[in-house]
């Protein structure tokens, strides 16, 4: 785990089931995350992933790579294009800083509409 190391690309298929089950598991009951009719009425093309899920996916992307011993200290994300039902969300990441056991990983999650999320995750790995 050195500066410049890339994380393996990871693809998430954002099926309607995925969008809805993650919204409910994060206790986010806003209609745009589970009711397509209302989402369309509000000007969206479909239901879309909620932020708490995006945060969870970013965390999972990094810990899947770093292993279960890594401790997550910070998840900073900036949101861009929504990730709609039926989109494929592709994650890319790279180690950008390492100070002893503390690593900073830059993460991008992208759909066909553009960057859904860009951010950094700080983790602490065992010595």
């Amino acid at each position: 785990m050195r500066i410049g190391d890339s994380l393996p690309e990871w693809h998430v298929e954002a099926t309607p089931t995925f969008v809805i089950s993650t919204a409910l598991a994060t206790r986010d009951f806003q209609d745009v995350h589970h009711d397509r009719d209302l989402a369309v009425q509000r000007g969206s093309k479909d239901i879309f992933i909620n932020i708490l899920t995006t945060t969870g996916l970013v965390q999972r992307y990094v810990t899947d790579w770093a292993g279960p011993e890594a401790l997550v200290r910070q998840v900073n994300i900036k949101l861009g294009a929504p990730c709609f039902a039926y989109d494929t969300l592709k994650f890319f990441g790279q180690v950008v800083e390492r100070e002893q056991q503390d690593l900073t990983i830059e993460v991008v999650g992208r759909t066909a509409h553009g960057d859904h999320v860009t951010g950094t995750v700080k983790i602490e790995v065992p010595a």
Partner: protein
Amino acid sequence: MTDIEKEAARIAEQGECAPRLARDPVNLPMINNWLEAIGDDHPGYTEVAPPAMVQVWTMAGLRGQRTLDDPLGQMMTVLDEAGYTSVVATNSDQTYHRYLKLGEQLSVTTSLEDVTGPKKTGLGEGWFVTTRSTWWVGDEAVAEMRFRVLKFRPARKPEPVKEIPKAQAIRPSVNRDTEYFWEGTRQGELRIQRCGGCGLLRHPPGPMCPECGATKPKYLVSEGHGVIYSYVVHHHPQVPGKQTPFVIALVELDEGVRMLGEFDGEPSVGQRVEVVFTEVDDELTMPSWRPRADR
């Protein structure tokens, strides 16, 4: 100071709202639901919760209502009344001071940190509202979040682009060096200039051969087949007679020269293409490219 800024200052001055309790203590069933939905098979979440779940514990829930002293709720009301009726989250920065153990009872406090605007954004004019939340176990701060939303007035849909008559399309400048080319397209021929001295093929046309210096250009008629050497997708600015986006491809013809033209299709470098002729009017016929099935 605008009215919105005055209201923001007043709300910010209130500081942190009263602590709001999580519905349930940190518990395994909710952790397992979260892991299952996210698809996370991390084996470590049997005694502690995934850090990224911190906000989940204090979500207001299906019938949740904002408390009156909630600073984000108050600021949303101010902006709603000023006509900024739509909202989109833009940033979430979470810092976890430690992992949360099963059975711990969380509460959350929130204060208004910053309100900036009005800003022109892609979605419309709006204000960025930043809050800061702290999660507590008793009087120990265990996690923090800076959260930013854009509260905006939806931009009116842009006027549909008026159909521009084809005759208004940008026309090539035709001169003595190039008229053989445009005469060719009118006749359905793609003509490549060939030096009358040394026979070198060249495009775009010019008066003199760069190889031997002869000034007696002739031409040959191309088969009109080639591959995409490179391309651009033009989005902006608008071009008379064109609907954006459109593709301009640099095509390497089988005869060896490269030629620019519009391409109709999903482009990729190396793709086989063939020429198509589009009659704009009696004077002008434009060559362009389309995919060609290999046969």
